[in-house]
């Protein structure tokens, strides 16, 4: 008899809740590492070409005890945060200004077209010439990598603010530029700006590694050293470290974003 289906199965669906939803992706992750381990153990590829995951905790522990891991993480995090804050801040500010002042956007439109396609990494030569092999150079490169994302996010978000709400600001005594900005434009544009910042969070990690490759202490530099010694297990340790750091920053940001946008249904 198949009439009505299986009531137990129907009931267990929603009851599983969080565990039920987390199980499939967790299984996928375990499968991924399992397959990797199997490939490495089968001896099909040399250990330096594909280090087995089971060897990674030991590699990480020795790196941690030597103090290298902590230094690299702190170094990269400080580059990441300073570049992110600087690049996002300036990008958002210019985007908001261009969104409010049409003349400014028109004047800058061709300059933007010239500069925008140049990737952050193409600035490495100038970063070194201007700032030397220093954290400032890394900050600069990361800043450029996130600047444009935030610029366009803010520009679009400010443009999209409903004229009706701006009229509300005028009708209730906030018609001057500062009042309009503070009471309506910025809060209304906040969701768009925050999604720009969030995209930048990922982009900035990419830039961190690339920018550190030329020798400024951090995860990227440490990876480069490890690779030159063919310590590929350490390279993988740092790759996973980056994934972890990105996961943490993105999760924290998402918490902040949800709080700031609690007014959205």
């Amino acid at each position: 008899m198949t009439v009505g289906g299986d009531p137990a199965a129907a009931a267990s669906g929603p009851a599983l809740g969080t565990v039920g939803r987390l199980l499939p992706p967790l299984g996928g992750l375990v499968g991924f590492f399992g397959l990797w381990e199997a490939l490495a153990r089968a001896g099909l590829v040399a250990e330096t070409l594909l280090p087995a995951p089971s060897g990674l905790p030991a590699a990480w522990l020795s790196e941690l005890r030597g103090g290298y891991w902590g230094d690299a993480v702190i170094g990269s995090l400080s580059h990441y945060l300073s570049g992110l804050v600087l690049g996002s801040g300036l990008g958002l500010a210019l985007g908001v200004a261009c969104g409010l002042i049409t003349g400014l956007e028109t004047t800058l439109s061709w300059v933007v077209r010239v500069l925008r396609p140049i990737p952050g990494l193409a600035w490495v030569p100038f970063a070194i010439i201007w700032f030397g092999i220093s954290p400032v150079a890394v900050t600069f490169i990361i800043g450029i990598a996130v600047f444009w994302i935030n610029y366009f996010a803010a520009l679009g978000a400010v443009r999209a603010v409903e004229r009706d709400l701006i009229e509300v600001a005028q009708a209730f005594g906030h018609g001057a530029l500062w009042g309009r900005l503070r009471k309506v434009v910025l809060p209304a544009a906040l969701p768009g700006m925050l999604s720009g910042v969030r995209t930048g969070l990922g982009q900035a990690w990419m830039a961190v590694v690339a920018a550190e490759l030329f020798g400024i202490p951090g995860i990227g530099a440490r990876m480069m050293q490890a690779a030159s010694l063919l310590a590929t297990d350490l390279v993988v340790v740092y790759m996973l470290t980056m994934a972890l750091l990105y996961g943490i920053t993105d999760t924290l940001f998402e918490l902040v974003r949800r709080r700031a946008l609690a007014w959205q249904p």
Partner: protein
Amino acid sequence: MAAVATLDGIALGFGAGPGRALVLEHLDLALEAGQFVAVVGASGVGKSSLLRVLAGLIGPTAGRVALAGAPSRQRRPIGLVFQEARLLPWRRVLANVELGLEGLALPRAERTRRAGAALELVGLADYAERWPYQLSGGQRQRVGLARALAVDPDLLLLDEPFGALDAITRASLQDELLRVWERTGRTVLFVTHDIAEAVYLADRVVLLAGRPASLAGSWTVDRRPRDRGSIELLEVAEAIRRQLARSMPPTDRAPEYQI
């Protein structure tokens, strides 16, 4: 009675040069203290423009707008209610009502007190900490009304405030508005394209018609409280409807304004 606001020979045009379109011309209107005036007219005739000129949101091309109230740092001369409530979605209900008070010279506690009193007046004191998306359309419109009342205005301007609501909610909000008006004694200018609504609410109904538009008639309705179906109201509405039909160009005559 003293006039709270006077429009004197108002003309309003958009654009410049020979292609410029006049929306309003030779428009005179005096709003007497405590009076409830409704402006009716076809869609697009310039009712909302008239209201925006009064509110100071657009400057007239010619003529003079005079507001009687003395300037003050504790209140605003005009409170405006829009068709869509236009609440700021990132502010809770109470903070929305405080919007107009924020530029004034008021201590924070006084701001909150006045906003709370305005919410009380529209029956939403319990909703102060809700977000706008948690309210129904009618409740949002009441918050919009509270926001306008909170600034303690001499003149309350309403731009088709109930036009987007269902008939049942609209009727209950009309009665609510009358109750608030009777309790506060504000001067009200109410723009609508619904003639039945205008004659039910207003002491005086003025018709805006023509292109460019000017006043094409004025009717007074005295008795309160009113019965929506009373012969008196139906007669005034019919008179307005006839006048409206006469003042329309033949091509625009559609049976849109039936009661």
